[in-house]
Structures are given as structure tokens and as C-alpha cells.
């Protein structure tokens, strides 16, 4: 996951938790406030109800008188109209039998009243008979402008609504009764529902804003890093002297990283230059004495009075000198390859063309040695990605070795495509390589037969081949039967 995404998600999560807890707290407070408001209303109603009239209910002597007064009270016109139409007012005896109640209470009876007794307040849910409100709407509620939909909100499918109420114990002398008062609570519930929906929407909306803002901000604050990445990608072996731009007035971590990277580049460049310089120096230091020796020998060899023996010695000196020069050249080449100083220019190349060029170039060796040299191309188009010059050297070295170690028989070069791989097979009928030595033939100057020093060492050619093929991610397999044949199989990824 990108740092940009991580940062954005992290801050979004933090904001989410913050906003969520704030809204939950707000929602709870709102609920609490509304609830206490409702309870206060109930308390006030109860107080008013009990204190009403001549001294109210508190002055009655016994329960019977209380009941008579209660019934008078709830049936009294202005009370009934004002309050009985919108409240539940139920009087129970000590066994919770209903003694008197308002019409609403009769229409929507309370269940399980006993269980509410221990609670400070209770809520009750009623299923409305839609017909009731419809008929009452015209007559009763219209007089007092009670908004039905609002006060007794009935959701059109379920016709349910909520009430909040309190049941209080009334003690008169030795007798006991219970008075339950319920107010419709739909208004508050509705209000809470609405605020909850608002809170959720606000939450989602602010999350979106934060994500978008966060993405932009993190992109903005990480943009110096992206700049560094793209500048670094533009630095290759050819332009190692390039440095990453620094902004001096800015002393943040990015500037520190930039300075460290530039320091590192400085050191890498120095090492590269030194390596290059070393190779060039070595090259010069070796080549000058060889040049002198060769000129000396050349100039001696034109002396007409040389004996045959002297000519032989001169010939062999020249050959040794040439081999030495050749070897130094290859060693330097290998060291360039190994320190990645060689230019590697990959392009799409045709294996067939490459092998044909190698075959044409080496053909005369086979001619002189009188061995069969065959190129067998099994597919018309074999394309790989690689450096033409380097691959020529790599494959030519292997073919040259095959020719060198084959005295009679044949050397066959084949190329074929199997699935997504292209195999180049170079097979000879030469002396073969013992099984336990196959792994070592790519080592520098490795000889299969240590007793033989006829100049036919593998030298360094195969080491170079291996290195080049490694750069190309090609795989080399060798199958060999001693004194019968050797098979080099080089497998490339096809294009």
C-alpha cells in the first residue's frame, strides 16, 4: 500500500472515530434532554391534576371519595377536551383493576402494568387502529388543533406510536391505588430519528471530504519524494554526475534524504570513475610492453639470415605474445562486464540472423578441420530481447569451443521454440566433459585435463559467455557424454 493511501486512511479513521463519538454523545444528550422534558411534563401534569379544585385530591378522606372525584374530574368537559383527548389517565385499584380512564386509555389499553411499577418511568408502544384516528380527527382533535401526524405519528404501514408514562402510588388512609399517566412521545422520537439520520449523513459526507482532502494533501506533501524517485530513475551509468535538486530554505526530512542520496551518488560516481580509470590504466600498462615486444620480434623476423630454429622460436614468441594480448583484452572485457561498465543495449533481435552470422564466420574452421558444421533452424521467426553484440560474443564463444574440441564428426547448431522459450542447442561430437567437471567449465582458466597444456584451455571465453547470458537471464544447460558428445542448451525467454 502506498504511503499516500496509508496516511489518508489513518487520518480518515481518526476523524471517523472523533466525529462518531461526538455525534453519539450529542445524540445521547439530546435523548436525555428530551426525556427529562417529557418526565417534567408528566410530573407537572400529575401535580396539577392532584392539586386541582378545592384542595385537590389530597384532602379526600377515603378511596371511595377519591374515585368519585376522579371520575368527575376526567369527565368534566373542559378537562376532557383539553387533556383527556391527548393523554392516558388511568386509575387502578390495589389489584390493578381499572377504576377509571380517559377515552384514549380505553382505546389503547396498557399491558403488563405491574411490571412498570418499579420503574421511574416507562415507554409503551401501541399499534394504532388507523380508523380510530381518522374518525376522531374530524371531531375531537380538530378543535384543539392537535396535529395528529405529529403528536400521534402513525407510520403509514405499521400504525405504531410511542408513549412515555409514569405510574404513581396513591395512599389514602390505609388504602392504596395507582394512577398511570402517559403522554404521546412520538414527537421526540421523531426528532431523535431525524437527528440520527442527519448525523449519519454528516458523518458520511465529512468522511468523503476528508478522504479527498487527505489524498490531495498527502499527494502534495509526498510530492518531493515522487520528484526524487523520478529524478533518481533518470540517473544511469551514463549520467552519474547528475544530482538531485535541493531546496536550501527548506530544512525538512526530504532535504535531508536528498542530501544523503546526493552523498551516496557522489561516492558511487567516484567508484565508477576509479574502476573505469583502473581498467584503462591496466590496459595501457599491459599493451605498451606487448607492443614493444611485438615490434621487436617483427623487426627481427625480417632478417634473411635466420636459421629454421630461430624462426620457430620467433614464431612461438609471437604466438605467445598474441595470446597474452588476447587474454588481457578478454580479462579486461570480463572485468568490464562484471563491474557493469559494458554498454548493454537491449533490442529485439532475430536468433536466426545471429546464428547464421556466427555460422558463416566460423565456417572456415570446420573446413580446415574437415568436420561437418550444420545450422538447423526449426522456426522461421525467433525473436528475443537482448544486446546483439554481446550475444554474438556469448554464442560464438560456445560454438568456437565446440569446433576447437571436435576433431572428427560434426558440430550442429539448432534453434527452436518450445512454448514461450527459445532454445539454442550447440552439439558437438568432441571429447566431451566429465560429469563432475561440467559445473566448473565456466570458471576462469579452467582445464578439464590438467595434464594437458597444449594451449587448449577454455581460457576465459566461456566465463564471458556465461556472464553475458546471465545478464540476459538465459539458462545454460550442458549434457555431455565423455568421448561421445557435448550439448550446450541455452534457453532464452521468447518475445
Amino acid at each position, binding site marked *: 500500500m502506498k504511503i499516500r493511501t496509508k496516511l489518508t486512511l489513518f487520518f480518515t479513521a481518526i476523524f471517523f472515530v472523533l466525529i462518531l463519538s461526538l455525534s453519539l454523545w450529542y445524540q445521547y444528550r439530546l435523548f436525555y434532554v428530551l426525556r427529562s422534558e417529557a418526565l417534567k411534563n408528566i410530573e407537572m401534569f400529575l401535580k396539577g391534576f392532584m392539586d386541582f379544585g378545592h384542595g385537590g385530591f389530597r384532602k379526600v378522606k377515603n378511596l371511595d371519595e377519591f374515585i368519585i372525584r376522579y371520575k368527575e374530574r376526567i369527565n368534566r368537559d373542559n378537562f376532557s377536551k383539553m387533556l383527556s383527548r391527548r393523554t392516558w389517565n388511568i386509575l387502578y385499584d390495589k389489584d390493578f383493576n381499572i377504576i377509571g380512564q380517559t377515552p384514549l386509555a380505553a382505546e389503547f389499553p396498557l399491558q403488563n402494568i405491574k411490571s412498570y411499577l418499579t420503574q421511574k418511568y416507562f415507554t409503551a408502544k401501541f399499534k394504532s387502529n388507523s380508523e380510530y384516528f381518522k374518525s376522531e380527527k374530524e371531531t375531537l382533535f380538530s378543535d384543539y388543533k392537535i396535529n395528529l401526524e405529529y403528536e400521534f405519528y402513525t407510520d403509514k404501514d405499521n400504525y405504531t406510536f410511542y408513549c412515555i408514562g409514569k405510574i404513581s402510588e396513591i395512599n389514602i388512609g390505609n388504602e392504596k391505588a395507582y394512577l398511570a399517566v402517559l403522554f404521546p412521545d412520538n414527537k421526540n422520537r421523531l426528532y431523535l430519528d431525524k437527528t440520527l439520520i442527519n448525523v449519519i449523513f454528516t458523518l458520511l459526507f465529512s468522511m468523503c471530504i476528508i478522504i479527498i482532502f487527505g489524498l490531495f494533501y498527502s499527494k502534495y506533501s509526498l510530492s518531493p519524494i515522487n520528484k526524487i524517485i523520478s529524478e533518481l530513475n533518470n540517473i544511469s551509468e551514463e549520467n552519474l554526475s547528475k544530482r538531485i535538486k535541493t531546496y536550501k530554505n527548506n530544512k525538512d526530512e526530504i532535504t535531508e534524504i536528498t542530501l544523503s542520496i546526493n552523498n551516496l551518488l557522489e561516492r558511487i560516481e567516484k567508484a565508477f570513475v576509479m574502476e573505469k580509470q583502473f581498467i*584503462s590504466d591496466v*590496459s595501457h600498462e599491459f599493451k*605498451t610492453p*606487448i607492443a614493444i615486444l611485438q*615490434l621487436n620480434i617483427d623487426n627481427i623476423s*625480417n632478417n634473411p639470415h635466420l636459421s*629454421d630454429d630461430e624462426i620457430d622460436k620467433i*614464431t612461438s614468441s609471437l604466438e605467445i605474445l598474441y595470446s597474452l594480448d588476447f587474454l588481457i583484452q578478454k580479462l579486461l572485457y570480463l572485468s568490464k562486464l562484471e563491474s557493469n561498465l559494458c554498454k548493454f543495449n537491449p533490442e529485439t533481435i532475430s536468433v536466426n540472423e545471429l546464428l547464421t552470422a556466427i555460422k558463416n564466420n566460423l565456417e572456415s574452421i570446420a573446413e580446415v578441420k574437415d568436420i561437418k558444421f550444420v545450422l538447423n533452424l526449426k522456426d522461421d521467426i525467433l525473436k528475443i530481447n537482448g544486446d546483439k553484440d554481446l550475444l554474438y560474443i556469448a554464442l560464438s564463444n560456445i560454438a568456437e569451443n565446440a569446433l576447437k574440441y571436435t576433431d572428427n564428426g560434426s558440430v550442429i547448431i539448432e534453434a527452436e521454440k518450445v512454448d514461450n522459450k527459445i532454445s539454442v542447442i550447440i552439439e558437438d561430437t568432441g571429447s566431451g566433459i566429465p560429469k563432475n567437471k561440467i559445473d566448473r567449465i565456466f570458471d576462469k582458466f579452467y582445464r578439464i585435463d590438467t595434464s594437458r597444456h597444449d594451449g587448449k584451455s577454455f581460457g576465459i571465453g566461456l566465463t564471458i559467455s556465461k556472464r553475458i547470458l546471465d545478464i540476459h537471464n538465459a539458462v545454460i544447460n550442458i549434457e555431455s557424454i565423455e568421448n561421445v558428445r557435448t550439448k550446450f542448451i541455452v534457453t532464452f525467454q521468447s518475445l
Partner: protein
Amino acid sequence: MNILVIEDNIKISDNISYILKNENYNYEISANGNEGYDKAISNEYDLIILDLMLPGMDGFEILESLRANQINTPVLVLSAKNQVEDKVKALNLGSDDYITKPFAAPELLARIKTILRRKYDISSNIIKMSELTIDTNKKEAFVSNEKLDLTQKEYDLLEFMAYNKNKVVSKIAIGQYIWGESLDLFTMSNFIDVHISNLRKKIGTISNKKFIQTKRGLGFILSEDEE
């Protein structure tokens, strides 16, 4: 012919002077870049043999300054640097040829003669050895006025030996001249054997004379008189 050799290694310049003396060229040796440049700018030479790594001014600087001063004396660059970039740089600065150390004496001679012929001796671009004629302009060879059908490499080989006629040319020298330094001894030796034998066959179909003789293992001589 006046030749200026600017080369700081005395052993190499000694050998070069030996080669030039045998060919009856006049020459001067300069072992320092600044001194060499002064000589080149104040005297007239037919050819300058210029090493690249020199004390004082280096080869590239000398070459650049000479050409900037309208001195168009042909320059043959000698160098231990065999990187392509160096060759390209030298040729771009106006050198006429580039030869990397180590080089064989016959190769140096062949290159000197090629430059001199190209620059001054346009009339004599034909090398003649009794029945064998080589036209170095058209890159064609004739035996008794009959054109030889030669490949590029065979022609190069014949021309190279003609420039060094009556001298032993080692296989090494031939290999370095024709293939550069990229071949190992085994491969090179085989290549040369094939080309020499083809060349002999082609000449042999026209003339009975053996122009190309083998000098034991050392190499070959192109000469008009049979031994």
C-alpha cells in the same frame, strides 16, 4: 617522404624508426607533446604518427590544435586505448587512421602506405609485381591482366601482403590487420589458412607462379621471384 613521430615511449619510437628507415623514409622523433606540436606547426611533414597519451599536450589536443590552425598533414593515431569512443573521437577530430597497440610492424607499414598513397600518390595507386597487379583505388587485383574474383577479406589480405612485399608477414600481423584483435589464436590461425589457400587457388588457376610462399610456421611472403 618526411614523417614526424610523436611518441613518448623510446622503445616503441625506436622500432618505428627502424621500420621507417628500412623503407627509406625521412623521419623525426619527438618524445613530448608540446615539442611535437611545435615541430608539426613549424615544419612541413607528409605524415604525423601521433600517440594519444603523451607528456605535455596529449594526442587529442595536438590533433585538435593542428586542424584548428589549418594544418592538414595526414595523422595516423597510435593508441593503447581500443575503446570505440576513442577511435570515433580521434577520427572526428580529423585523424586519417587509428591503430591500437600492440600492432605488428607490417600493419603499421601498410597503414602508412595507404595514407601516403591516398594523399599524395594518386597516380601510383597501382602496385605491380611482375604479372600481379593490385589497384588499391578500385580494390581489384589482376594476374596477367585477368581480374581475380576475390572476396573482401581475400583482397585485404593480398593488398596487405603487397604493401609488405618481399617481407615476412606473420599470421599474427595478418590477423590483427584483417580481423582486429577479437579472435583467439586458434580461430585466427584457421581463418588465415583458409583465406591463404583460397587466394593461392584463385591465383593458381591463372598463373603457375607461386606468389605467396610460406615461411615455416611464422607466416607468408608475397614475392615475385620463386625461391
